[in-house]
């Protein structure tokens, strides 16, 4: 019985998310819908970054760059043909023939991001710790420069706007479920254990037959895939993509969610993503009415400092809490 607890938790999550999406899609106004979607996208981002940074201990700052790759690919594949002459007059002819519905376009975007991660990983994963962080930060800058200058395809700093608003709570909930399920399955498999082993002691892991490079690449690639998906969802939620959106600040925000939730804890990432998105959103009326901008960020930063002082390993550490797992731990 106890062993099935995670399965029940998953079933409860799926059912409640479906009901919740249905209710909110029919009852709430656009503002609330947008917040719900942002929360969901942040969950996808935080959980997938947790796979890279949390499980495997790769301090990657590159998540927004993978988001950008996925977002732009998805946007270009779904861009309405009739708008193309107006928005993208110099768009290469041969690319015109590629047009896909939203879901396959998202998948292609995710795979594109994963492929970029594979290429980047070959060189960057030779580095560790701070060096890896700096190298992935450089990768964000490279992507931004590329997006700014490839203006026949991306419209440069103007950004791609006028995208269709495909993203709704159903899509977002669906991807939240897929991301959480896959990351959960990975965590409690032999592969997931080897990822944690690489994080804890790479020499010992290597001596036991774990291939360090392929384990690290896998973590980066899967993380990047979901970042690409999140990028696609994000673009079609706010119906615009600009190179400036995918900045270091965004990377910082996602990392804060992972650290506060607990590096390695999926439940922690989900909760932290919800808390942070809602906190920042709650302070928005205050900021606008009284003209004190940035209060949300300050509160978030304070919260981070407090967590780091009183619970340095995050809310749940590496564990999944009992209310999800049951008492029986593997």
């Amino acid at each position, binding site marked *: 019985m106890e062993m099935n607890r995670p399965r029940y938790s998953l079933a409860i999550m799926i059912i409640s998310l479906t009901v919740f999406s249905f209710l909110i899609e029919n009852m709430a106004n656009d503002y609330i819908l947008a917040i719900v979607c942002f929360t969901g996208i942040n969950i996808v981002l935080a959980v997938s970054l947790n796979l890279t940074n949390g499980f495997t201990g790769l301090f990657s700052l590159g998540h927004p760059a993978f988001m950008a790759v996925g977002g732009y690919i998805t946007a270009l594949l779904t861009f309405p043909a009739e708008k193309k002459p107006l928005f993208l007059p110099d768009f290469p002819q041969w690319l015109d023939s590629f047009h896909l519905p939203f879901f396959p376009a998202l998948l292609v975007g995710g795979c594109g991001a994963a492929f970029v991660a594979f290429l980047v990983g070959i060189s960057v994963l030779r580095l560790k710790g701070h060096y890896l962080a700096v190298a992935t930060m450089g990768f964000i800058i490279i992507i931004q420069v590329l997006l700014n200058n490839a203006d026949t395809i991306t419209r440069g700093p103007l950004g791609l706007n006028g995208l269709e608003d495909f993203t709704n709570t159903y899509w977002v909930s669906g991807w939240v479920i897929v991301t959480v399920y896959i990351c959960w399955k990975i965590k409690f498999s*032999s592969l997931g254990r080897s990822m*944690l082993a690489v994080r*804890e002691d790479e*020499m010992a892991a290597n*001596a*036991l037959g774990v*291939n360090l490079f392929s384990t690290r690449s896998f973590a980066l690639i899967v993380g990047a895939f979901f970042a690409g998906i999140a990028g696609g969802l994000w673009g079609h939620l706010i119906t615009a993509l600009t190179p400036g959106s995918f900045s270091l600040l965004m990377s910082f925000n996602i990392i804060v969610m992972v650290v506060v939730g607990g590096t390695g804890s999926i439940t922690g990432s989900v909760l932290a993503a919800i808390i942070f998105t809602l906190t920042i959103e709650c302070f928005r009326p205050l900021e606008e009415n009284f003209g004190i901008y940035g209060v949300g960020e300050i509160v978030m930063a304070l919260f981070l400092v407090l967590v780091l002082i009183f619970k340095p390993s995050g809310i749940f550490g590496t564990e999944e809490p009992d209310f999800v797992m049951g008492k029986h731990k*593997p």
Partner: protein
Amino acid sequence: MLTVENIDVHRGKTHVLHQIDLHVGHGEIIALIGANGAGKTTTLKTISGLLRPTKGKILYTPEAGKAPIDISTMAPEQIVGAGISQCPEGRGVFAQLSVKENLLVGAYLRSDKEIEKDIQSVYEMFPILGERSTQAAGKLSGGQQMMLALGRSLMSQPKLLILDEPSLGLAPLIIETIFAMLQKINSQGVTILIVEQNAVMALDLSHRAYVLETGRVALSGLSSDLASNPQIQKSYLGVE
């Protein structure tokens, strides 16, 4: 079983090992002793593929009578797959993983149905690990962590078990337990190559031994002979 032929190893620009020759026969316990910096750990890491020799060969014969394979160019995971398992220096348990998860990582390259049975036999060997199987490995005492590291390296079902300083920082009583267990593991057919600072215990346990000095094999022979060698007694055994 394992023949190291004339290997030279560099770590960065430092030439650490000079023409090391070692031979490990099937079923033997071989000890490598020597002072700090003599190259013991480097030798082990080279055998398990974590370092690459710049010259020389490492020939490994998994079963007597079979053709030897050169493992000096193989990746660590291939070497583990071939039946050589190393228990690293300083134990290297995965602190945040539970005891059982640590053992499962040890069986990373296996996918057979015997894994659970092997976990049980590690628990039989060290009952304390069975009692604490769901606890984080970081919460174990030093001696228990050593038992876990030893059990974990047995999970890949090695034919050759390599141990790097199993007695490091442990109480004498626990060292005795560990060494008694090594004796038992050896009697079940696992060949053992052990590096030790504690030369008295190492010579007592092993059949043959090699003495390393500044990256060269200074002496080798039967452990009982080495234990009575006046030079060894003076340098390593503290006998005046």
